[in-house]
């Protein structure tokens, strides 16, 4: 089977049999997810280890994490189209695809996570506009539409599809007005990332999560935006780098990566300053006012190591690395720094979700721990498999990396 006529012009791709094996692996993961999804939809959420104390579980953690990591899409788009950083054109396609994967994956997970999936649209129908979750639902849906609009021209640019005049022109015209979508997307995603953080900050009866803020927005609203735009570019770039390693090709110039790293690092620094200030105020002013001490929050297995992992290993360390020019020049340390940055934001989403719920508020309540079931892992793995599949197909058949042909001249 030869699919080379679908490959982007002037590029080479691995043998179909290799690609097929890789797809099989991904499909196996997806199969696991399908079995899990079937069980959860057919038998109900008792298939998970969530309960009335851990109302949210690993799915929400993965959701929040991938949405934060997917923030690379809107922020790169924002820098590229709105701030006119032309060099980012070389990575924007990858960012859009990753964003699309993250957002659509998150929505699929949410579809299983809610107890009544066929009523999911009630959030629109009977919307409570005071709920951060409503804001999340609205923004995530509309932003996904934007992402689809951004993704469509790229699909249409497939070598064969692009030969159809209607589609060719449509793709071209969408590109022409991309700034409109990018700006709308930025607005939507900004609120969406924020309202995800706001979801926790507004839980004023949950001392671990609750935060003060401005107007209707708690501090977590802004911290989530910042941590997302700090980690998003890192994630996009590290995915590109991993793709480079796997395919053995240079896909973008290192300069682009360094720019992404610099943006990521600077935002991370900004975020960390605010986050640490927030944490100190929370630990030493807000918590005692509720009659608690931070030691109540950190009990086995959710000990202070979480704080060190999130803010130290996943915060300060990558921040220092990303901001040092020497590190940025090194391919591998740069990748490590970016992955640490992603780890940090994931830990933050984990802590905000799981630990918020683990900490008992009533003095006579117990401290519970939570371990996901294989079904929950299955769905989570499914989203990853979904990402692998979409990104692999996109890379194989779509002109994702404009610099690829020049960086990898073919002999033909």
């Amino acid at each position, binding site marked *: 089977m030869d699919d080379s006529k679908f490959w982007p012009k002037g590029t080479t791709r691995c043998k179909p049999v290799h690609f097929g094996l890789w797809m099989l692996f991904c499909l196996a993961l997806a199969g696991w997810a399908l079995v899990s999804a079937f069980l959860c939809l057919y038998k109900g959420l008792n298939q998970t280890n969530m309960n009335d104390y851990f109302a949210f579980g690993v799915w929400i953690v993965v959701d929040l994490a991938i949405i934060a990591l997917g923030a690379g899409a809107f922020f790169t788009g924002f820098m590229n189209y709105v701030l006119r950083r032309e060099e980012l054109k070389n990575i924007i396609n990858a960012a859009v695809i990753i964003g699309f994967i993250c957002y659509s994956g998150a929505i699929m997970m949410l579809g299983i996570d809610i107890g*009544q999936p*066929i*009523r999911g*649209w*009630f959030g629109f*129908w009977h919307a409570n506009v005071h709920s951060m979750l409503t804001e999340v639902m609205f923004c995530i849906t509309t932003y996904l539409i934007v992402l689809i609009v951004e993704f469509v021209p790229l699909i249409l640019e497939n070598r064969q599809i692009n030969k159809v005049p*209607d589609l060719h022109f449509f793709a071209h015209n969408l590109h022409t007005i991309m700034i409109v979508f990018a700006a709308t997307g930025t607005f939507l995603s900004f609120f969406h990332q924020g309202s995800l953080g706001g979801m926790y900050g507004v839980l004023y009866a949950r001392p671990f999560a609750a935060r003060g803020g401005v107007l209707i927005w708690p501090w977590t609203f802004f911290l989530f935006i910042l941590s997302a735009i700090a980690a998003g570019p890192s994630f996009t770039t590290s995915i590109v780098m991993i793709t480079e390693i796997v395919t053995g090709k240079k896909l973008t110039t290192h300069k682009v990566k360094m720019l992404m790293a610099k943006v990521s690092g600077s935002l991370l620094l900004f975020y960390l300053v605010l986050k640490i200030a927030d944490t100190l105020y929370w630990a030493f002013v807000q918590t005692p006012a509720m009659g608690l001490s931070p030691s109540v929050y950190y009990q086995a297995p959710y000990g202070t190591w979480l704080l060190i992992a999130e803010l130290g290993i996943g915060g300060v360390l990558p921040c220092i690395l990303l901001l040092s020019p020497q590190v940025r020049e090194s391919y591998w340390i740069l990748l490590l720094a970016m992955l640490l940055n992603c780890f940090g934001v994931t830990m933050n989403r984990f802590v905000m979700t799981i630990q918020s719920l683990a900490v008992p508020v009533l003095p006579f309540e117990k401290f519970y721990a939570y371990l996901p079931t294989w079904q929950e892992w299955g769905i989570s793995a499914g989203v990853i498999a979904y990402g692998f599949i979409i990104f692999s197909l996109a890379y194989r058949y779509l002109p994702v990396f404009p610099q690829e042909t020049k960086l990898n001249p073919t002999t033909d």
Partner: protein
Amino acid sequence: MNWDRRAFVKFAVGAVVGLNASPLVPKLMDDVAIWTQNWSWVPDPETGAVAFAKSINPATQTGVKARLVKARLSGQRVIRVEGDPEHPLSQGGVLAADAAAPQQSYYQAMRVDAPMVRKEGVRGRVAAEEAVQKVAAKLKALAQAGKASQVAIIADDPFSVTGEMLMRLAAAYGTPNLVFMPSAKQTLALAGGLMFGQGDIGFDLANATYTVSFGTPLLEGFGAPVAVRKAFAAWRKDPMHRATLVQVEPRSSVTASQADLWLACKPGTEGVLAYAMANLMIQAGKVDSAAANAAGFEQFKALLAGEYSLEKASQASGVPADKIKAVAEGFMKAPKAVAVCGPGNSGDPGRLFDFMAVLALNAVKGNLGKPGGLVLRQGVAWKALGGPLDLPGAPRLDGGGKRIMGSYSAYDLAAAALKGQPYPLEALIVVGCNPAFAGPQAKVMRQLIDNTPFVACVSEFMDETAELADVVLPKASFLECWGDCATPYGAAQSFYGVHQPLVSALPQTKSAGDWLLAVAKLLGGKAAEALPFAEAKEALAARAEGLGGLEDLAAKGYWMQEKPAYGFSFKTPSGRLELAPSALGKPAAPAAGVAPSKERPLLMAGIPSLRTGAGGAPMSPYQVKILDEITLAHKDQLVVEINPQTAHAMHLGEGDMVEIASAAGKINARLHLYHGAAPGMVFVPVGLGHTAFGMYLKNKGANFFEAVEVAADPGSGLPQWALTPVSIAKAGGVSHV
């Protein structure tokens, strides 16, 4: 028109726009919204006219009203059992068991829905006639063979109309072996009989200002529990002038915690403390004249001064002397003080010595026949079902009649029958109780059932006993039939309650009385003559004649003595209070009770609870649902309490799975370290561990009565299982830390 790509695009765009402009989308969304609510397996209870009817739950003696819905298709059904605000004992309150009663009545997997007969080992549903015929034929054959006395009957309540019918039936048929499940009413009647010559006594809790409860679960299953709670609520009504409650027992129970003072005594020393307090009062010169003039007062005084001094009592009970003194003084000074005795925490009928010591303390206080004290009850003026019958001459298996008073004992009956002394059993009839589970020593009762050639039972539920029986006759629940119950334990006023059929949940069920009548009719002869009623309702009506007739009674739901009868009289041989009863010749004194040994170093006691309930009455699904993880954990593990120090000394920890073994049997449970448990003891919830009753109850926890070792109370001779020496060892199994 050419159907080219362009036309297709136009069509598609047009279709999308058109569909969105039409009301189709909102309509479909609305339909989906409705459809998401129609899940075929979620029941849709049919509505109808609502009505109320009064009733009484004989298991809890709560006066209730049933909320009935008369639906067009599904007919009349009880949807709720609520408290009857007009009922003097209940005043609108209920227990968990009452509120869950409809579930119990309707849930078919728990009930016996049709008569059953075991044929070649297999139990199958049969017609009512066949089942009754089977029982009657067996009894007839035994009577003809001169073995009538080898038939035994075990029943739940001697004071109900069914109890009276059974007494008549047994006498007419010719067996002396009718026994009832053991009860504290027996012990109180014995103690009252010995000291006052009167056994129908109660505690005027509602009017007391100072109450000392000696080892009885006052708030966890004493008397009619709702009525006791109403008195308790009255004590707590005014926070500034609340009545005082003192609890004497080894464990920090609900009563002990809600009490103003808890005397944590060593197990089995409650009576000692009552004597010690009486002694302190005598020493203080605060002795009521009736007590001072009592028969054997000097002897009593000397005994107390010698053996029950403050120091000795403090040492024996482990309660600090100042605490004993404080309670004695409070009791002495309070205008309306009462000392209370009753069923033990394990559901046992109590120790006679404790009861007599408590009655003596009340007598010394001088509260006999006074408001807030110990009162004589008027009695229920029901009419007997017929003239007296001659009692069969054969000796009773349970040895009743040999003891001080002719009190029955199901346990002794079983023990004697198993030994075949003086004779074994040929047939056993169990009515309305579940001895295979509730024993009190469950294994002995099961052995009796196994060893008896023919076993019949009249049972509401497919319980452990019914599962072993050869013939099972389905008994109607209290919501389905006529029936009655009489004065609860310890109540200050005599009481009589009636329940009536409100629904027919299971059409094949009948009241126990109706089944008895059917058997008696087939037996013919004296048995039929002794019960000349067409149906049990007639017997009830005959009984109720003395109380204003059944109709009025049913409408109101109860008859009750208007107010406690104040004033007291003694019917003893001496005509006085007898502190050294003539039947004993000396004041009551405790005999050595059960004690731990080297092999069995701990004492096991029950945890009384209105959630688990005690005895054979099963819990309904809702009751099982509200059990905490300190009672039932991880699907099926019974949780027992042990003091942390005791546990550490035995190298045991929280959540350990252990085997609790007595000389009589063993159970497995999970340990919960509880500071309120007395050191050296293990406390086990009573009422779990059924092997019958379907998915909500079956195999949940372990049965306390499997480990109970019954001993005869040295005073009364009644079965006694308040304390059982046990050993504890770590058992295998997952502890789910």
